[in-house]
């Protein structure tokens, strides 16, 4: 087990190596992204403030990510409730299909949506990115919410019915508060996926790029690479923060219902 532990730690270093390099170059005064490092600077972060195109892309991404997260979580709640409470004909097939975007290459989702949109004579834009992101975030939301709903003791809801609550008020007063940590976790995960997603946005974004699409276009200009490192540092720190909060809520939910199934998947 000792040698396995050494291997595991080396593996973690391998996993984190690229991310650890990011702040080194983001705060390095050299315009070339290579070792040896020169001196400490925050110039690249202040440069980000001057890139007005990037601000538009950031706002666009935030708008898309918030909307996709809300839609995916809502769709996730319906599906997670359906599978954790009821069994219905064709359940396996229907759920398998809903979860398909988890393994389907994103480029397939992107080009197939693009074809339909163009065939319908519509123009791509933020709305089409939202449609695509909702589709790929929903399986993740379902995975998180399903364990939240499965851990819920049905006798609590039965008690509410017996005390004269309607199905709607029971959902609002009993079910929703108990699965709330799962819902928050699903919202944060979906938001993070949408903020980072590139391919679908690349195909469906139209005239207004999202942040990753803008970032991709920055990569062609060597002059802008230090700023890319700075932006990347901010994005990675934010992603880790959001995911940590999501994990905190998921665990709190697991503790509240007394059942930790562990992990996101």
């Amino acid at each position, binding site marked *: *087990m000792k040698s*396995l*532990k050494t*291997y*595991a730690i080396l593996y973690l270093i*391998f*996993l984190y*190596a*690229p*991310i650890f*390099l*990011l702040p080194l170059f983001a705060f390095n005064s050299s315009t*070339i992204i*290579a*070792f040896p490092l020169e001196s400490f600077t925050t110039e690249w972060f202040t440069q980000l403030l001057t890139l007005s195109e990037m601000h538009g892309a950031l706002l666009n991404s935030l708008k898309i990510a918030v909307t996709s997260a809300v839609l995916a979580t809502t769709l996730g709640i*319906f*599906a997670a409730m*359906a*599978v954790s*409470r*009821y*069994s*219905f004909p064709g*359940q396996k097939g*229907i759920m398998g299909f*809903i979860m398909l*975007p988890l393994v*389907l*290459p*994103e*480029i*397939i*989702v992107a*080009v*197939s*949506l693009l*074809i*339909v949109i163009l065939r319908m*004579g519509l123009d791509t834009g933020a709305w089409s990115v939202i449609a*695509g992101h*909702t*589709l790929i975030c*929903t399986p993740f939301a379902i995975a998180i919410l399903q364990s939240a709903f499965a851990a819920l003791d049905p006798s609590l809801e039965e008690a509410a019915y017996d005390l004269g609550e309607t199905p709607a008020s029971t959902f609002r007063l009993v079910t929703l508060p108990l699965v709330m940590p799962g819902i928050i976790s699903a919202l944060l995960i979906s938001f*993070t996926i949408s903020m*980072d997603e*590139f391919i679908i946005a690349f*195909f469906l974004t139209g005239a207004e790029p999202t942040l*990753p699409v803008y970032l991709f276009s920055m*990569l062609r200009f060597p002059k802008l690479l230090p700023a*890319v490192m700075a932006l990347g540092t901010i*994005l*990675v720190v934010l*992603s*880790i923060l*959001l*995911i940590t909060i999501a994990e905190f809520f998921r*665990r709190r939910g697991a503790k509240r219902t007394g059942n*930790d199934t*562990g992990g996101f*998947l």
Partner: protein
Amino acid sequence: MAASDRIRRFFRTEQGIGMLLVSPTALYALLLLAVPLIAIFVISFWTQTGVRDFDTAFTLANYKEALTDPLYRQLMLRSLMVSGLVTLITVVLAFPIAYFVSFGVKPEHKSLWIFLITIPFWTSYLIRVFLWKVILGYNGVLNSGLQAVGIIDEPLSFILYNVNAVIITLAHAYAPFAILPIFVALEKIDRSLLEASRDLGESRTMTFLRVTLPLAAPGVVAAVLIVFIPTIGDYVTPRLVGGPGGLMIANMIQTQFLRLNNAPLGATLAVLAMLIVAVIAIAFLLLGNRAAGGKKGARK
């Protein structure tokens, strides 16, 4: 009247409520996944005539071109080879990690380990791929590091802008995908089975080979599929670190759609890629099932 009554009654049964609840999500997947997938299949038999105009007469010309043009065949074979190798590397490297977290870590620390392993996966994919370019480049972190230590005199040039770089980068990106399913399968193993094997005189190694490994097989199968299927369609990694010799089928699909304005040929390549992946995945599943079944037979 009778029919609508029956329908109303159905939606008060367990099955009815379940169907009703799942319907918004199912409908969404139907409209935004099933319909577009059917559309891409249909369009692969058409011909592009203008920016948004198609000749809708049925033709197999796209398939003929996709299957006979050596460029497309080369890209398809390379994509298969890359995702096959990436799958092999990730699963082999991931198994010991999953095993360590499941068997070597205290139960209260397990979710922390899994959390640490999954974190990099949630950070910007684009940034991570770009950083591999920084690491593997001619003046990159790896080359300058190795030169500083004196292991090499001249920078290694075979590690960027080719297939090797694509494989390294993808193996890094998909590592958590391989660890999680194997970990879940290992966690499900009843520990008393391992004790029983040891009590019956099997060595540690034989217990691992004859008890742990077969019971972990479903997790390994899931890991293989969850890495193999999406990597074949990866666009960003070949584009950023692959150079001209490392491009894959997704790059060609993108070129056909957005640059050459030949959506039907792009659709054909997408359909063929999915078809090949599906056939391999199903064959792999069947083989896995037969292997598992064979073992059961041997135990009798």
